């Protein structure tokens, strides 16, 4: 049992207990002290320090936002503002999310281990997911019939290996949201490109009518970019 988890666990329990007591108007010790606020702030501060040390910048930003929400009234009093509610909580979370997206676009973080998921969809085909990170997918053409790639807020590159084994008519389904997906296809293949586009950018440098083994690219692109590049 990690000591850090024990400490945070105890604090969370205390936060819950004090919260219930405060909400029901029961004050055990000193009624002027906001115990839930103090305990909640302590928990968030510990988590913030841990996330900074682990270089989890996006988590740190959200924890700062939650700390701001808890101590909003105190901050307003400190800066002698007229209103106690400085900013709406939902707006604050929205703006923090926008900041995280902006930071990731400027400095994409490679290989977000937590977020890269490989699994099997209900149809039995294999899928790979990438969110807020960089990802390289290598598809083995000797066994390639169907593959799903999900890319959200990140950058994914798809490369084909063992292309001499490829028989054709495999389906690559790409689901791209707010990110960039680049598909590197051998120039002697023909590509059937049928991707639904919503406020995004699609480009395909390989003509559909070309002879050669056929690759079918389907899926949808929302606010992002999908490029098919011949190599």
């Amino acid at each position, binding site marked *: 049992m990690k000591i850090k988890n024990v400490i945070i666990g105890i604090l969370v329990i205390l936060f819950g207990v004090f919260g219930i007591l405060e909400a029901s108007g029961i004050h055990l010790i000193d009624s002027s002290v906001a115990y839930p606020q103090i305990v909640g702030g302590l928990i968030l501060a510990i988590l913030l320090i841990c996330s900074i040390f682990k*270089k*989890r*910048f996006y988590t740190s930003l959200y924890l700062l936002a939650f700390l701001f929400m808890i101590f909003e009234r105190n901050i307003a009093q400190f800066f002698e503002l007229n209103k106690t509610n400085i900013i709406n909580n939902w707006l604050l979370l929205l703006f923090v999310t926008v900041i995280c997206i902006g930071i990731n676009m400027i*400095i994409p*973080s*490679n*290989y*977000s*281990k937590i977020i890269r998921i*490989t699994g099997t969809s209900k149809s039995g085909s*294999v899928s790979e997911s990438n969110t807020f990170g*960089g990802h*390289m997918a*290598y598809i*083995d053409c*000797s*066994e390639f019939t169907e593959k799903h790639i999900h890319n959200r807020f990140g950058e994914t590159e798809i*490369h084909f*290996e*063992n292309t001499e*084994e490829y028989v054709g008519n495999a389906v690559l389904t790409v689901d791209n949201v707010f990110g960039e997906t680049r598909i590197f296809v051998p120039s002697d293949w023909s590509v059937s490109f049928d991707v639904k586009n919503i406020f995004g950018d699609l480009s395909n440098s390989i003509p559909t009518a070309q002879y050669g083994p056929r690759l079918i690219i389907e899926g949808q692109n929302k606010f992002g970019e999908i490029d098919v590049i011949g190599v």
Partner: protein
Amino acid sequence: MKIRIEETDGEEEILIKCRSMDIGTKIAQKVNEIINKEQVEMTLYIGATEYYVRKDDILFFETQDNKICAHTVERMYRTEYKLFELEDLMPSYFVRVSKSVIVNIKLIESVSRELTGNGSITFKKSNKCTYFSRSYYKQFKDKIREVRFVK
């Protein structure tokens, strides 16, 4: 415990004599690991076809679709071994750089680290690239120093 080694002219054979089957099995496993490490080639697969690939030509191993893939400059193969088994089977210049990747340090061209602590690795004479995790970075860095700079 006595250990006796006899040199023979005939077919290569390793005979283990001991009181307990458990000890004998463990010794046999260790001997097997040593022999496998010494082998220059390993058996890899593309589909049902077996290929005998030099270990020195393998850039990296990675987990994909619940299988382990071995990447060389030209191709991608499958192997039956798991990553933890490959850590024992492969020579010492193969090192784990993340939960799902083992790389060949001798074929690394560049290592670039991001602000988050993770980073990417590129290889000589190849456009292939893989990623390392910050939790494995220290042992990765130590291994690079050991393999590439120690005379």
